[in-house]
Structure formats: C-alpha cells, structure tokens
C-alpha cells in the first residue's frame, strides 16, 4: 500500500479498510515516519500484522528491495494498491521541467515500478491477485493549471487497462479508483481551496455537497480486492459524489 502514511490521506483510508477486512498490510511512504508508526500501531491493534516500509516509488531499486522485504517479512503479496502521488499547480505555458519530472516520476513511473514488480511476483509465484491504482477524476475531466497532474492520471488509465489485458489470464485483476475532492493533505496547497469562500464554491460543484472521506475510497478498493470483484478488471470506479457527472 504505497503513499499510505499521511493522516487524512487516501492511502491511509484504503489501508484501514483493507485491515478491517483481515488483510495484513505493508505501509509504504516516502517520509512521515511518525504518522506511519501510528498507523502501524492502529492496524496491529486490529489484530493484523503491519509494518512500515519507507521507499521512494520513483526509485526502481528501492521498490524492488521493498517488495523483497515485504514478502520476506509478511509473506507473498496478494494485493497491491498503488496510491503514492504528488500534485502541482502551474499554467501550461509555465510548467517547469522540475515540476514535470517530479510529478511524472512519482505518479506515473512510480506506479509502473510498483505494479510491475508486484505483478511479476504474483505471476512468478503462480498466485492470483488484485492491483488497484489511485487515479483521479482528471482521467475524465481535465482541469486547468494541472496539465501534468492530469496527464499522469490519464497515463495511469492506459497502464491499468493494458495490464488488465495482460494479467487476466493469470487471475490478476487491475483496476483504478477515481477520487474527486478529498480533504487530504495533497489538496491543502490547491490555490483554489485556500479560503472559506473558495471551499464553498468548490462544494457547489459537487452534487453530494461534501468532499469524500479517505475511507470511502478504501471501501471501493475493498470491493475491487474482494472475491466480489473477481470478474471486474480494467475498470474505473469513480468515488466523487457526482463531481464530474455530466462534465466529461
């Protein structure tokens, strides 16, 4: 479970929901060791095995080492949730190479690194499995000032759909969940969500009238990772309170 340590984060919500269903969980994040330790303790309190594996998903060698360590300590991986992501707000004409490289290396290459390494482990071990990628409503409705972020999420759709075709014969499903607005740390720096007025204006765009809770994404991931979802692959499950309905 990558990108899982931060409080209020989608990854944490998914990790909690999977633990509720009986999963032992390897928590990955690039930092936030204190928050990770608290989450590990919380999941252990549920009777699950849990541990923190800090690694930068954009670093392929670090991902391979992490997968190896997880399997040595917690056992073979049955479920992978690739969730680590970063955002930036820049006009298209002003996108810097630094920002482009940061977003693409984490959101897109990082997901590729994690999904490929885990899929290889499942295939080599002859095990069925579930892969869930956190994409975004940007897959269907691009937003201004977020050309690279939106592009990375669209790229994930292409990756998920192709891997779904490749891995179905091995009993491995590959799907993506699409959060709309979640009150997570990643949105704290959104230039359009800084004032109460801006938050109210954004809520008016969401038919459900509220942001999502991270655990609502978690329940969607649980469905895709359960036997109920065995025949669901290459699919996109939006959890956005109707945010982009009628807009794509």
């Amino acid at each position, binding site marked *: 479970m990558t990108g899982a340590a931060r409080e209020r984060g989608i990854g944490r919500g998914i990790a909690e929901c999977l633990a509720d269903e009986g999963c032992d969980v390897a928590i990955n994040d690039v930092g936030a060791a204190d928050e990770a330790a608290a989450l590990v303790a919380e999941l252990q309190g549920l009777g699950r095995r849990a541990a923190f594996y800090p690694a930068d998903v954009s670093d392929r060698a670090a991902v391979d080492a992490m997968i190896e360590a997880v399997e040595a300590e917690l056992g073979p991986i049955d479920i992978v949730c690739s969730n680590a992501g970063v955002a930036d707000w820049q006009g298209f004409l002003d996108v810097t190479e630094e920002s482009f490289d940061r977003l693409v290396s984490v959101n897109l290459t990082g997901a590729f690194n994690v999904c490929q390494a885990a899929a290889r482990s499942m295939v080599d071990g002859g095990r069925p499995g579930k892969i869930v990628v956190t994409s975004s409503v940007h897959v269907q409705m691009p937003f201004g000032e977020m050309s690279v972020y*939106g592009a990375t999420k669209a790229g994930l*759709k*292409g990756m998920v759909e192709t*891997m779904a075709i*490749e891995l179905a014969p091995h009993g491995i499903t590959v799907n993506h969940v699409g959060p709309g607005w979640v009150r997570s740390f990643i949105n704290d720096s959104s230039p359009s969500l800084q004032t109460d007025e801006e938050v109210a204006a954004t809520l008016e765009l969401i038919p459900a009238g509220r942001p999502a809770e991270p655990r609502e994404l978690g329940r969607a991931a649980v469905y895709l990772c359960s036997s109920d979802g065995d025949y669901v692959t290459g699919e996109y499950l939006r959890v956005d309170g109707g945010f982009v309905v009628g807009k794509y």
Partner: protein
Amino acid sequence: MAVSIHGLPAALATAVEDAFSDVAVAGNVAVVGVDLSNGPDLVLLQHASWDDAIGAARDAFFAMQRAARSLAEGGGGCLIVLVPVHGLRTSRGCGVEAVVGSFLTTAAQVAAVELGSLGVRVNVLAVGPLEGEVDARTTDGVPIGRLARPADVGAACAMLASPQAGFVTGAVVPVDGGYAVTKAVGGSPFTDASTAAQ
C-alpha cells in the same frame, strides 16, 4: 502562415508538409508528435524502454509548450498533437503507446482550456494503426478496410488548421478508419510483438 513540425517520423513529417503546401490556412500552425513503437507486455517491459517512452512524452510536452508560447506571441494559431490511437483504445502490446497517448491527450486538452482566450486552438489527432506498424491482419478491425497512410494524417492536420475548424478546440479526432470503434474485431494484432521482452 508558418507551419512548424516536431517529433514526427520522417514519412509523417513529409506528408504534413505536403498537405499544407496547397491549402489556405489562417494563422500559424504547429504539429507535435511522438515516435513510439509497439513493445512487449508492460509486465515484461525493460525499465530502459519505459524511460525511453517517458522521455518521448517529455520531449513532446515541452515541444507543445514552446509551440503554444510561439503561437500565443504571434496572436494565435493552431496546435495539433498527434498521438497513437492506442491512447483511446489500448491493445496488448501497445501499453507504452496507450500510456503516452493518454498522457499527451490530457495535456493537450488542458492546454486548450488555458489557451483558448489567447487565440490558440489545441486539438489531438489519434492516429493509427499505420501502414508498416502492423501486418495486414489488422485491416480486419478497420471499417474502412485499410491501414492509415501518412497522407491521411497530413489531410487531417490541414482540416484542423483550416478556417472551417476555427471553433474546434480540445477535440480528440481519431484518424483511424474507424478502428477505435471496432477494435475488438479479430482480437489484438499486436500480440506477436508482445512475446519478446525488449
């Protein structure tokens, strides 16, 4: 009128130049493409091949940005981004094209959103399967009954650049003989390429 071309394979670049040689086009035009090839399954893909594909996407993105700046400074114009049709409909063996095609399509649409007020239109042509890219079996899945030719791509560029398309921006136009609609016919024509890791 000036036409700039970036990132296209030679045959496509020539066809685009030819298409603009005898048509009336209002304003300046930039055409940006990305040169990718079919590969193995993503699960088998070598990391260097992934990095090459991301590098190609990066090169195309910043070429789009430079072109858009130039068009905006010139008072407006038309930016056309050519992506593989697999960005719309993936197939086994086309993972890299699906990822990069989807990536550049969304980048182009955001650019269209931001640059409309500057008089810059941005549209996407989803192209393929091209002659030479796949074997003749692929025509089973193409309603028009043949593979895409460079001249088809050039003509579509001229269409988007024409005054008649002056209100068209953020569009994704398949130039694929209908392949994106019916690609399920005949399964994947690309699986031969998927058996060997690159």
